[in-house]
């Protein structure tokens, strides 16, 4: 029973993670994304990027609380999905919104701080995705963990990116920021209690 559960865990989480993407694809093909479909895609993929980054950050605290170690088996997949959604978000912006106008893209990345920050977050995710294989984990040894702690920085860059772009109503970015802080505080508390 237990091994069946473990065997089913990965494929079912995989399919679950794809649901937002499929939902958006259906919207594209039925042309039912509303008056500004490109903006809709950009915003929704942005939402899911942030959500996946926070879900990844929640794995360790949740495992500690629940003692449910099989959570670790899906952590890599969740991280890769975060990278996937951030990449789709960037593609929606660069290809659909800017029509791959490289000049405009360069100007945005250099001159608009919220885009600079968002782009930086994506660039920083690349080495994490590349080094997510078992072979790379072995090769990097201790340094692997250090490298992958960069996700703490990446998530906060994502929150700042969102906070900076909203015109006035910061309610949603504040919610993401609060969740981020809670997840980070759970880590700090765990560390300090360990040392005691």
């Amino acid at each position, binding site marked *: 029973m237990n091994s069946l559960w473990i065997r089913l865990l990965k494929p079912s989480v995989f399919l679950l993670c794809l649901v937002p993407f499929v*939902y*958006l694809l*259906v*919207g*594209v093909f*039925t*042309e*039912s*994304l*509303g*008056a*500004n*479909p*490109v*903006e*809709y*895609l950009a915003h929704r993929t942005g939402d899911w990027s942030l959500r996946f980054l926070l879900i990844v950050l929640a794995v360790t605290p949740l495992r500690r609380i629940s003692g449910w170690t099989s959570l670790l088996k899906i952590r890599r997949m969740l991280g890769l999905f975060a990278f996937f959604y951030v990449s789709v978000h960037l593609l929606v912006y660069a290809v*659909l*919104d*800017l*029509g791959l106008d490289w000049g*405009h893209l360069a*100007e*945005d990345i250099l001159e*608009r*701080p*919220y885009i600079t920050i968002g782009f930086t977050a994506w660039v920083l995710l690349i080495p994490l995705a590349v080094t997510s294989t078992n072979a790379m984990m072995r090769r990097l040894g201790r340094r692997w963990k250090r490298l992958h702690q960069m996700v703490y920085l990446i998530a906060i860059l994502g929150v700042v990116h969102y906070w*900076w*772009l909203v*015109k*006035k*109503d910061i*309610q949603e970015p504040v919610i993401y920021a609060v969740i981020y802080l809670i997840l980070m505080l759970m880590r700090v508390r765990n560390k300090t209690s360990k040392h005691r």
Partner: protein
Amino acid sequence: MLIKKPSDIKPSEITDQKHYQGRRKFIQAGVGLAGAAMVPGLWLPPAVQAAREKLAGVKASAFSAKEKPTSYKDVTSYNNFYEFGTAKSDPVKYAHTLKTSPWTLTVEGEVNKPGQYHLEDLVKASTLEERIYRFRCVEAWSMVIPWVGISLADMLKRFEPGSRAKYVEFTTLYDPKQMPGQKRRVLDWPYVEALRIDEAMHPLSIMAVGLYGEVLPNQNGAPLRLMVPWKYGFKNIKSIVKIRFTEKMPRTTWAVSAPREYGFYANVNPTVNHPRWSQARERIIGSGSIFTKRQKTQMFNGYAEQVASLYAGMDLRKNF
């Protein structure tokens, strides 16, 4: 196996657009019943389907733009009207709580005929005109909208502004019961906007009371909203209850809220960027394909010939 080449398809086999769309509606209805949740934005919100009332005696105008108007559905379901929520899909869902009749307009300040005016009387006294205007939001998207309205100059002259009336200030209704978005202090309510008197008296400036030949839907600023087509959308204040003539430049809501980002003039200007995004291009609003490109934004939203003289000698970088 027979593989059909594209040329094998006879014209008679190609589905007529009417049937194709009808079929698509049918399929969408089916899909909707099967699982509406899978198709975003499939159902028209109820307010879009609310009673629509035709306006009589609307005259065409030489000021109308030649571009094809944005669909009624998009114009009425993608709105910035923070009094009903900050999401663009909020106004169409929540604006039905606004009661637009009877509607009284208070006129005060540097004016010979201050007082309370019934909106009906003001509209009756003027000619209703259809004005198809380009509409450019400060967020870098645009529409083409067939407004029905009355000349703002005609309306303001009726109140006989005095010689010290240098500016006209407009105020939106403040009533959190009717406008639930006002319960949150996202902006400093009530919403206030203003024009210089010569801007207000310009023949392009109108007070809109309708859309697509019909009474203005609540989410578009019923019953009375400003429409000054060479300025960014946020200048065009909605659901106006008060007009005040002043000598000093009024403090306007967005300019107070973020002075570095939104100025008093807010003229559409592709050469002056918003601090956080470019104003050089705009996305044309229209449901459907995701492969439409942005178009270049025009100086004064394409109305430079008519309005550039209003700003002769002014530094538009400073007076943004």
